[in-house]
């Protein structure tokens, strides 16, 4: 995948396999950054995103992140690993 990052703006990602463009929020970018290093379970991802972006972990934020992971999986940006 190739990305262009714009200061104060979102990141645009080019998915080389699909040819699709994706506009990533800082949170989505953090998710890709984390999973780019090693696979992780959803709770770990949420932990690391909160640390990286200095976010307070709330129930709302957890639900939003779980939804985001689902969206990214459906978009082909990440893949659910076999249990």
């Amino acid at each position, binding site marked *: 995948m*190739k990305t*262009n990052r*714009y200061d104060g*703006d*979102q*990141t*645009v990602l*080019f998915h*080389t396999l699909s*040819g*699709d*463009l994706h*506009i990533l929020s800082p949170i989505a970018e953090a998710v890709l950054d984390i999973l780019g290093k090693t696979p992780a379970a959803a709770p770990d991802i949420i932990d690391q995103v909160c640390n990286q972006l200095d976010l307070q972990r709330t129930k709302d934020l957890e639900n939003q992140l779980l939804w985001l992971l689902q969206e990214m999986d459906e978009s082909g940006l990440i893949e659910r690993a076999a249990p």
Partner: protein
Amino acid sequence: MGPFRIHLQTSLPAIARFFRTHYAAFPLYEEASLADFHIRIERPRNLRRWIRPQLLFFLDDYRPFHPYPLQMAVPLFEWGLNWCIAGHAHWALLIHAAVLEKHGKACLLIGKPESGKSTLCALLMDRGWRLLSDEFAIVDPGSGALLPIPRPVSLKGASIQVVRNLAPRLSVGGFCRNPALDEEMAYVVPPPDAVRRMHEPAEAGILVFPRFQSGRELEAAAVPPSRAVYALAENSFNYNILGPEGFRLLGLLVDKCRALELSYGEGTGVLDWFDTIF
């Protein structure tokens, strides 16, 4: 025509007349075999030669479209050539845009049909902007510069009278009626100076996404770079065919240019606005 050589074979008087008026400034070459596109437009040899007469468009010996009505000879050539370029010129990044240059910088007008970009293109030509193209922004992959292909500017419906009223110096011809949409079509002759300079690229300076709406006040709003990349991709014929290189060129354009969404209605205020952008 700009970076392309076209070999056209036809015996249709309407196309011959159109070339005499609208392509008069373009150079003619002796050697047909060096053309990028070999186009043939002819009448069929069956009953449709005479009864509700039709036309056939060939690229080499391949017929990519259904037959067109005889009265659509000029649009068939123009649209057919657009199809040839959009479908084959993958040595460059192609974006559906009108492109004009002033003070050494190019303005891209990017938008879907009915956004008013061809009308704006014609009116800006009349105000001294150099026409690079009415249809394609051709981005050179080496330099990122925009390559001119200053072909006739297509107008349709109400825009024909708008241009004739606001820019009477422009020469408008090639009239025909599109039976499918019951709409008149016409073409503005490209200025000879634009044709003479068709091998002079221009550096991109600004991306404008126009939106015409009757009665609308003029308003320009900045488009964030991420949205501008996305919008360029949506209007590109081939960024996904070019793959990472296409993405690189989209990013290059956005890095070089301001991007603005321009809403406007009737009147010449929008033309005055363009005088302020560089």
